[in-house]
């Protein structure tokens, strides 16, 4: 439940960013603070080396970070779910081919692939989403396929088939509703991973430097020598925000998993 509260908090912050902080504070032009001012009443989280309020950056950064997290996850889910359900449902050589393909993607180490893709595709928010999306679907696909296989074998599917139902009916009425909760729980875990991935890619300088996300703030701070300058207020807020959000997503994911997976329940 703590997870939900934290999530709610950050969602509200992201949505209400324009109310909480002036977006002009994102541009050094509109920045009013001094260079690396420590936290004060005016700047509760201090300023960065361009005089921007770190609080403003963190608040607006939540938008990009969460957005990347959600869109990348959505992309990964769609790919994973389509491949997983198609493979599981149709079976046969189609399944073999699709799952081989998935396995290939599964063993290719994520970050090197993301690095290669990002350096080939160029640095933009869209590419980051794309890269995370297309590198993180295989896990979902496997999971969805396994669940589809098990749902497909359930007698009610056979019953519907015996009633004369076609593939579309079976997939939409029986498979999907029963796979969906799992996809959903998985989605939540993937969001956490996607947000972490965004951070890592941005940290390596593969993010879009024109969009402020928690990852880019950290990159600026890291490369701007925040630590040696003693500017902890520059490193901490985005880092703690990441930890909290990822933690919250993970906790919600596990909680859902536990609800959906009765075996984990207390015996």
């Amino acid at each position, binding site marked *: 439940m703590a997870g939900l509260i934290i999530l709610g908090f950050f969602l509200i912050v992201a949505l209400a960013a324009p109310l909480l902080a002036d977006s002009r504070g994102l*541009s050094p*032009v509109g920045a009013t603070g001094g260079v690396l001012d420590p936290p004060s009443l005016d700047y509760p989280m201090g300023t960065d080396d361009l005089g921007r309020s770190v609080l403003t950056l963190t608040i607006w950064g939540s938008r990009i970070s969460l957005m990347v997290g959600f869109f990348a996850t959505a992309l990964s889910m769609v790919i994973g779910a389509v491949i997983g359900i198609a493979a599981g449902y149709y079976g046969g050589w189609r399944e073999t081919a699709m799952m081989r393909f998935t396995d290939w993607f599964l063993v290719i180490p994520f970050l090197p692939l993301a690095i290669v893709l990002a350096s080939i595709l160029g*640095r933009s928010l869209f590419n980051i989403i794309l890269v995370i999306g297309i590198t993180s679907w295989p896990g979902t696909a496997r999971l969805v396929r396994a669940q589809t296989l098990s749902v497909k074998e359930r007698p009610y599917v056979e019953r519907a088939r015996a009633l004369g139902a076609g593939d579309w009916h079976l997939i939409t009425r029986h498979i999907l509703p029963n796979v969906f909760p799992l996809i959903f729980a998985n989605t939540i875990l993937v969001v956490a991973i996607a947000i972490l991935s965004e951070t890592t890619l941005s940290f390596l300088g593969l993010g879009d430097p*024109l969009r402020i996300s928690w990852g880019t703030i950290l990159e600026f701070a890291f490369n*701007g*020598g*925040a630590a*040696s300058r003693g*500017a902890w207020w520059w490193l901490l807020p985005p880092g703690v925000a990441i930890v909290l959000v990822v933690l919250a997503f993970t906790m919600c994911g596990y909680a859902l998993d536990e609800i959906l997976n009765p075996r984990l329940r207390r015996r």
Partner: protein
Amino acid sequence: AAQTPSPSGSAAGKLTFTIGDDNDLDSMNPFVAVEAPAFQIFFLTYDFLVNLSQEDLSPSPGLAESWDQSDDGLTWTFQIRDDATWHDGQPVTAHDVEYTYNRILEEEQGSFIDYISLIDTIEVPDDQTVVITTKEPTLQLLTALVFILPEHIWKDISTEEAGTFENNPPVGSGPFKVVEWEKGQFYRMESVPEYWGGAPRIDEFVYRIFNNEDALVQALRAGEVDFADSLNANPFNSLKETTGITTHEANIPSFDEIGFNVGANDTIPDADGHPALLDVRVRQAMAHAVDKQVILDRVLQGYGTIGTTIVPPFSAAYHYEPAEEDLFQFDLEEANRILDEAGYEDTDGDDVREMPDGGEPLRFRYFVRSENNSTVQTSQFVQDWFNQIGIATEVEALDDTTLTDAIFEGKYDMFHWGWFPDPDPDFILSIFTCGQRPPDGIWSDSFYCDEEYDRMYQEQKTVADVAERAQVIFEMQKKVYEDAPYIVLYYDANLQAYRSDRWTGFLNQPEPDGDLLSGYGNYTFVNLRPVTKGAAADEEEGGSAFTWVWVGLVAGPLLLVAVALLIRRRKGEEDRA
């Protein structure tokens, strides 16, 4: 923790000087390397025929003790010193010079050939003499940054092999030789007591690579390294107040500019630069709309100087500073006035001006480098100012590769990049010549082309007198400044910091504020020595507020866990059955 104020690696009685940097060595092969750390090695390992003096970069004796130019200016005679030996004991002779130059000329070795391209013939009447004739009169040979290589080593390396030859350790004639190279880690060089310029006073020089600037700064503070090179402003600032450490803003030949696409269509049919940028008045108006002082203060935190022309003040003899009245002062009204006058008006009321024919709005693609935060930050200021003069910009961060491609294909309007020219202005001047425009040439990134300029460029190459040449070069700079294919934003500085409580003998090249390490020579390294008298011991630095925040951050949760453990530690017995 207190450190004994001794040099970093004085173990085993050796005097070791350690510098830290964030850049890795790429190769020890001079035909291959491009990274600064490699050049650090070359400066210490090899000699030039003619060195650049420490005080003002003027020609000074290198392997050549003395030289002579014939009256027609075409023939140069160099006297090679007889006290120079290669690290393996072989003597350095005129043949080595001949060999090196010839090899570069024959193989058209990329980074070096430009320096000596005017050479016609090389003769070696005796071991100690080199006679070079040039096709035209030139001063180029005195500023040629070509490392002289030992013939007896390199003659066995074929042209093909040269591309991948490791050259480890390199055999040179300089004051230090490489003894150890841990890739990605450090390299270690030992001094060569027989060096013709006198034995260095340190025994050993270590170059350590830090990928994390914070670690580098900490290492300097902790005394793990003695010198930190190429720092960013923030860490640099943090070192300013530290006792025992001296900081230095080194004047280096470097500048950043906003470049415009002023005519790619002339050479590339499908280039798509914005037509408004062909109009010099638009560019001048934009030059009026950039407050360089703000950028210098806010983006560079004041480290560097305001930029004007394309030859940096580093090349003191050749830098031209426009007169006060000729400067494009920051003046948004003036900028607006120029644009109004030129007929670029906002006809549709969207706050963006259109072309005089009322068509295309002045909306420019503005590329910055995703690898370089300063360009990103600058763009946010520039965008804002341009908005105020009715010019819209779409800022996009590209990696260098993509940006290079865009420029090469002429598919851009404006970009932010920088140059690091040689002390001699020839190269930086060359990039504005017509011949350098892609796709035939390579270096022009503004597609600037001007007949008069090209003529002057040829002229400066062949003027044998420095002062006379400078006049021509002034004119050229003035022209480029006024035509504004570039807005030169600033000349940045190399931020350096070192343990002044341990070391002394640093020499600037050039004086008074040049680079403390190897600007274009090995002066510091030969002169460097430990502080003799025991300096004040490092004062105990108490844990700063900063430390406690971190400690709290980690200890807090741990404590909570511990408390939770204590509270919840109930029956732990085995009986669960």
